[in-house]
């Protein structure tokens, strides 16, 4: 397995929406490298024909009756919001200036 580079960590942080600092990039690159080297041991197991398990309880399509039930009142849903306006969540701009 290839060693994880500082640039790769920066890419991962971008994907994960983490505005990490320069110092963190160094720390995480070193730590992730050690961790990945250790967990890569799973690759030693010959498992070509083994089916993967994603879940201990293999259930599919759990249905319930389609009944109208009370949902969260608007005030309760907005109560924990960082910002709300006109009974809605207020969010920062989602389009760039040029768009």
């Amino acid at each position, binding site marked *: *397995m290839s060693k*994880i580079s500082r640039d*790769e*960590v920066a890419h*991962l*942080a971008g*994907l*994960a*929406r*983490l*505005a*990490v*600092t320069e110092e*963190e990039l160094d*720390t*995480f690159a070193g*730590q*992730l490298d*050690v*961790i*990945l080297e*250790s*967990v*890569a*041991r*799973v*690759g*030693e*197991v010959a*498992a070509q024909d*083994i*089916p*993967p*398990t*994603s*879940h*201990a*309880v293999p*259930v599919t399509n*759990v249905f*319930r009756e389609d009944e109208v039930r009370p949902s*969260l009142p608007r005030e*309760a*849903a907005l*109560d*924990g*919001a*960082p*910002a709300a306006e006109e009974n809605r*969540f207020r*969010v*920062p*701009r*989602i389009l*760039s200036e040029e768009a």
Partner: protein
Amino acid sequence: MTQTATGGGSELTGLTAADLADRLASGEVSAVEATRAHLDRIAAVDGTVHAFLHVDEEGALAAARQADDDRAAGRPASPLAGVPLALKDVFATSDMPTTCGSKMLEGWVPPYDSTVAERLREAGIVVLGKTNMDEFAMGSSTENSAYGPTRNPWNTERIPGGSGGGSAASLAAFEAPLAIGTDTGGSIRQPGAVTGTVGVKPTYGGVSRYGLVAFSSSLDQPGPCARTVLDAALLHEAIAGHDPMDSTSINAPVPQVAAAAREGAAGDLTGVKVGVVREFAGEGYQPGVERSFQAAVAQLSKLGAEVVEISCPHFEYALGAYYLIAPSEASSNLARFDAMRYGLRVGDDGTRSAEEVMSMTREAGFGPEVKRRIMLGTYALSSGYYDAYYGQAQKVRTLITRDFTAAFEQVDVLVSPTTPSTAFPLGERTGDPLAMYLADLCTIPVNLAGNAAMSVPSGLSDEDGLPVGLQIMAPAMADDRLYRVGAAYETARDAASGGPLIESIPALEVA
């Protein structure tokens, strides 16, 4: 049996939940008195232990008054009505903050209750407050809490285990007779082991995850924590059972765990086959832990159990598989903390984009371990690495499940040490994530396969005088076997050493 430990505080806080329930039933003690005693104990020792992130004195006393009123009217809500409990801060509670030990959720009060919180209320159990934990349940020492570590009541310079260190420490400090934890890779059992208390990870799907802040959804499982096996069983029955709000909840009768604990306490394990996991010994195990484990195995054999050695060849790959699967699921689950609908928002100055605010918030709100795991999971799931990491880990998960299936064709339960060492010193492993992960070595296979396991105190390690846990593992939906074997062992161990292990805990300094 009545516990009146040296470290137990008042007479009421020293009682087991079962004993306290008896006294409540007979009218000898009121729920308000019992709750008051525990709140006083928290006020006296939690400055040192820091098991709680939030104590709800008013709510607890109101719940206690309700329990007393119901009993006076001749309709107590359950056998545990009026008994106080400490709830891990990972469960949504509409009347208390729910922080998961994270700055991301500081002060957040959820708009709804988790099923566990609701069942506790329905049972008349008095929730004293919310307990400290590693941030989003990621850790083995509670040092990853954004609100400072919890200290082990056996030695306050040592870790209480994690992620549910607060719940386990609250029991050992006699701040509560019952607690609730969640176990994704050992977060109930490992803290139980290092604090000399009992912790159970029920069969996956046995207890509802609704309203449990998700870390790794295919592994997370709520469960009971207590100072005795019977107490854990009583709590298990109060919270377990099918819940339509959790689609992975098992729709089948709850195993009769309280009856199994009572049967086990009679002390006869004739006809029970116990398998010792060969792979969980040797290098990396503290000698005192191994000696305590060997003594426990000898005790089981004395009780009539047939003990054999069992090989589970793929268990040695469990740690690697877990630290790929759990971070992968976490990276997806924690994407919900996007600074838009609830929780922290940083940098929203009117000029920054949603994406910039999101990235700044997550950077500010998450601690180092959470960031590490999110990036590790992002890596394991990214194209080019998926097959080698996440895909291969899922195949190993299948092989570990098969190891269990083969083992349980030969034996009724498997046993191992719960964790390779006793409580390590605070700060010892914080700079070395991999060393921290090793604390979960023996507990992880059960989470991957979805079956049930318990940690029960097996005594003190002879080299450092700190508690050791015996892990008992059973097949899925055979949780009752844990309680039968656990209670038989506990009774025999207590009898042989002259009393419950918790009675030998040093007294905490009282404020």
